């Protein structure tokens, strides 16, 4: 090696969850846990990935962390695997508590599981999957950043991400119903309506601190004449941080609760708000944990739902949104579900001044907040903001006044990037623009 020793050891961050978790470990427990996960939960996929990777480093430029750190190879996807999984495999789990601390920091805070690197590896090696296995091991060892572990605890005890109590949930909906009725007097947020066509589900943070999104969605449903409902019981929260901590058991419980809630209400389908990771958990990971090939109840993401309404003439543009806008493609619904063209059709319908950021669609750079990274909280804020300089450059190059980010995690991450790099851009959900510019036939004068 050269004079500089690149690696996580140079950038350790103090986090009480990691510190206290690592302090409780013994080498025996680490070894036993790693071997248990490797033998019991991984198979040909991890073996093949580890064996055939030819260490070419071609994945590096896929990763925003690498692109934002002036060629520091320890931020490349393969560099992260080298610092975590390869060591665990080589040493057959005989690693120190300090090593687990560092591996946890890499896996939880320096990889957003966005899978862009899969598109750059000639063998299609899925580094996000490897990082999830590392997280699974760290979860079983109890070495997890405190903030995200708190959300997983919330999921486990309340079945929602934000410690929202049963009555607070209903309260929040009634409050938003009240707010909306100022403008749309006939509007209701139908609770527990059995046999409705649509169950609308949101993530825990919506009732907690992005409540206006519920109001806007209610206006859209009402004005488009949808037969819809929201549940009054658990199962309303489609989010899933347990999926990101490595707590696969809670992940499966959450998804089961969500699907069973829709089945209890006998709805035809679930429409979910503008959230990426929640979509991943119902479409990619949670369903598989429950041994469902696809979700047992049809699920439509907001982007596709808006597109449908527009196509069917149920959503109409009252006035164009004149500011110049750009669109950030969130990994979980674009690289995860291919909704990029539908998203563009909706954006173009409302925004005549649309500018593409480059790269875009399934090649878009990650927001650096997803994959649970933003949920690791304030100790790691700089990790993700400094780790995404390339996103700031990408946004700036568009010259747009407004960035549309149809995903909660992306939204949080981009907000910090826009402030951190002083881009002076406005940030909006797509529903913000739709709500502002749509025809509202039932609105009071």
């Amino acid at each position, binding site marked *: 090696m050269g004079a500089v020793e690149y690696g996580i050891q140079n950038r350790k961050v103090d986090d009480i969850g990691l510190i206290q978790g690592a302090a409780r470990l013994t080498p025996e427990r680490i070894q036993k846990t790693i071997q248990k996960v490797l033998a019991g939960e991984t198979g040909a996929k991890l073996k*093949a990935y580890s064996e055939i990777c030819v*260490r070419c480093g071609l994945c590096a430029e896929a990763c925003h962390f690498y692109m934002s750190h002036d060629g520091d190879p320890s931020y490349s996807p393969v560099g992260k695997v080298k610092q975590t999984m390869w060591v665990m495999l080589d040493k057959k789990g005989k690693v120190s508590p300090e090593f687990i601390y560092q591996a946890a920091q890499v896996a939880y805070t320096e990889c957003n599981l966005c899978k862009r690197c899969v*598109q750059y590896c000639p*063998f299609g090696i899925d580094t996000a999957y490897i990082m999830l296995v590392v997280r699974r091991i760290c979860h079983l060892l109890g070495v997890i950043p405190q903030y995200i572990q708190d959300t997983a605890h919330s999921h486990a005890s309340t079945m929602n991400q934000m410690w929202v109590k049963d009555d607070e949930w209903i309260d929040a909906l009634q409050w938003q119903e009240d707010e909306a009725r100022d403008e749309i007097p006939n509007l209701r947020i139908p609770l527990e309506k059995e046999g409705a066509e649509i169950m609308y589900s949101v993530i825990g943070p919506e009732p907690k601190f992005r409540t206006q999104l519920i109001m806007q969605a209610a206006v859209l449903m009402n004005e488009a004449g949808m037969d819809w409902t929201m549940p009054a019981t658990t199962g309303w929260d489609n989010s899933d941080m347990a999926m990101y901590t490595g707590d696969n058991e809670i992940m499966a419980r959450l998804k089961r609760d969500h699907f069973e809630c829709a089945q209890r209400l006998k709805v035809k389908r679930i429409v979910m708000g503008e959230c990426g990771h929640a979509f991943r958990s119902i479409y990619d990971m949670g369903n598989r944990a429950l041994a469902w090939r696809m979700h047992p109840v049809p699920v439509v993401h907001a982007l596709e739902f808006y597109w449908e309404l527009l196509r069917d003439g149920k959503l109409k543009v009252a006035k164009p949104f004149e500011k110049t806008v750009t669109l950030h493609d969130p990994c979980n619904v674009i690289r995860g579900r*291919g909704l990029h063209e539908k998203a563009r059709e909706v954006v173009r319908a409302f925004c005549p001044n649309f500018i593409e950021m480059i790269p875009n669609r399934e090649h878009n750079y990650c927001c650096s907040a997803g994959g649970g990274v933003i949920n690791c909280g304030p100790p790691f804020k700089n990790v993700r903001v400094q780790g995404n300089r390339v996103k700031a450059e990408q946004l700036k190059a568009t010259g747009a006044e407004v960035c549309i980010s149809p995903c909660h995690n992306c939204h949080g991450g981009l907000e910090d990037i826009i402030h951190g790099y002083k881009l002076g851009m406005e940030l909006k959900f797509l529903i913000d623009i739709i709500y502002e510019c749509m025809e509202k036939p039932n609105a009071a004068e």
Partner: protein
Amino acid sequence: MVEIYNFVVGPLAWVGWGIFVVGIIYKLIYMYSLARAKDYSSLDYMSLPFSLRSIFVWSIPFYATNWKRNPAMTVATFLFHICLIAVPVFLLAHVVLWQKFFGITWATLPDQAADYMTLAVIAACVFFGVRRATDLRARYVTSYKDWLILILVASPFVTGFLAYHQIFNYKFMIILHIVSGLAWLALIPFTRLSHMFLGLFTRAYAGSEFGKVRHVKDW
């Protein structure tokens, strides 16, 4: 010398080829049963059309985004792999051996072309070596194993080239050539070189997930 030569083209060749063929079959069966036991939630999404699409697309130079981004690496990689397979299979001197021992024969490359292609393989190995030593992206993740593999892959071509041009002792060189070639074959199933066949399956899986589930391109 003659006895040694007879030994390496006789019993040793059977051993080398045997390990190569049986090793690959064993590895494929082992990996498939392991995938069925442990990775069913991935295996279930495999799709033949999307697998083939992915393999096909990545086999075209400068088509995938990342091939475009790394032109030198793309040229070296494609040249290397094409020559690496074509030279041993279609070399006249090799086909003659197949004819002598099994009575079968097929098209051959002109010696001059094979000579240039051998040089191309060696040049690509030098390129990979220099890149491994100087490009931080590769150097950071390189271990001694990667160097051994590179030397292993280059040696049958270097020795073959020297033998063909009768540089140094021909008889010694040809034996070295055969031994290193057989070692290379025998090690394919058990080292990083297994990407020769396993790489098709990881590519196929990525293609299936991206095509069938994610509805996006994986290149």
